[in-house]
């Protein structure tokens, strides 16, 4: 019997197989969560306009329980990184991410947020927000149409469906240390890069 409960009628994507056991409690838990994902009201660039259009009358996020766009990270579950992330902006993006309470999801919307997009080689552009914060769903396109974004949001819901209360990170013992906030120096500096950078600078000084 327990086996049957554990057999979900969801298709589990190959990369998530083996990590998941879905029980009835999980279903209730996830059902509650999947229809109340509150995105952050946080627009970066052109894609943000399509995000607003998605919240508008024609596409209507409210049908997914997502209409409540909160400007404060403290009340959000989902960060839609909608547009080009620049070096000047990434400290704020990381900080906002750190301020969001668990469970949190990140959807990277548009070519720019996924991988730099048309501006990838620019001197002030981050080629992919996933270099700094973990991303759950990527929605390519420049800009993704509202329907493409909705498809991405449904992917988030699918992902929520597959999580198990036993294993989710936010009920584990260890505390999440957060992501170190990048620093604006002569160029953007990621604190995780300090050792390499120091080595390089020292080498240069000696030379």
């Amino acid at each position, binding site marked *: 019997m327990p086996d049957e409960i554990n057999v979900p009628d969801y298709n589990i994507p190959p990369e998530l197989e083996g990590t998941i056991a879905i029980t009835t409690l999980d279903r209730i838990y996830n059902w509650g969560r999947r229809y109340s994902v509150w995105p952050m009201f946080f627009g970066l660039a052109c894609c943000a306009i399509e995000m607003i259009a998605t919240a508008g009358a024609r596409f209507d996020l409210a049908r997914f329980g997502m209409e409540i766009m909160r400007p404060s990270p403290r009340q959000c579950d989902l960060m839609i990184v909608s547009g080009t992330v620049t070096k000047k902006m990434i400290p704020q993006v990381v900080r906002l991410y750190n301020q969001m309470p668990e469970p949190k999801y990140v959807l990277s919307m548009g070519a720019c947020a996924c991988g730099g*997009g048309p501006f990838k080689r620019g001197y002030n552009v981050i080629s992919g927000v996933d270099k700094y914060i973990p991303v759950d769903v990527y929605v390519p396109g420049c800009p993704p149409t509202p329907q493409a974004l909705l498809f991405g949001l449904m*992917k988030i819901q699918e992902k929520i469906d597959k999580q198990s209360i036993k294993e989710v990170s936010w009920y584990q013992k260890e505390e999440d240390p957060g992501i170190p906030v990048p620093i604006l120096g002569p160029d953007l500096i990621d604190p995780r890069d300090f050792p390499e950078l120091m080595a390089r600078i020292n080498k240069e000084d000696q030379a």
Partner: protein
Amino acid sequence: MKGFGIIKGLGVTLKHIYDTYAEDIKAGRKRYYTKEGVLQRRTTDTKGIFTVNYPEERLAVPENFRFVPFLVYEDEDGEKVPRCTACGICSKVCPSQCIWITRAVDQETGKPLKTPAEFYIDIDLCMNCGYCAEHCPFDAIKMDHDYELANYDRTQNNIHDKERLLKPASYYAEIRPGYYAMEQKAKAEEEAKRAARRRPRE
């Protein structure tokens, strides 16, 4: 009178509420989940509820719509023969420089062939501008209509290789019937002209 402006404004919202129900009653069942219903909501005199219930209903994309590019192949006896001749024009016009092509080489003679060995498009860079499709002289690269590309892992899904890019000509004919017909016609004319030119020499 103080307050009149507010009341007038509320009248507008009230009318919108009224329209919502009035339209629903007038149009009946066929307003939702039918093709005509969706179309009606796109016309210039639409009233009432405007929402298209994706994913059950979808807005039909127009023929000109462009999302990421794909390569057209002709089906010749079950073999996929791409139309692409590896001329490299698309990779030269591409504004975000997201196309990489390697030309195939004949294994024996070492001569370059008129077909790509590899073809990559990084859709994390592509700006959906449509230049590649516009300037391709062989109608080999076209813009797709499929926008449902969201995924969990970009490293695996967002660099499209040749295999992923190739789609049959029939698919192209399906999404862009007008252009397909036009191109076929132009090709036929070209053929005819060439044939006419060849004959006198014989």
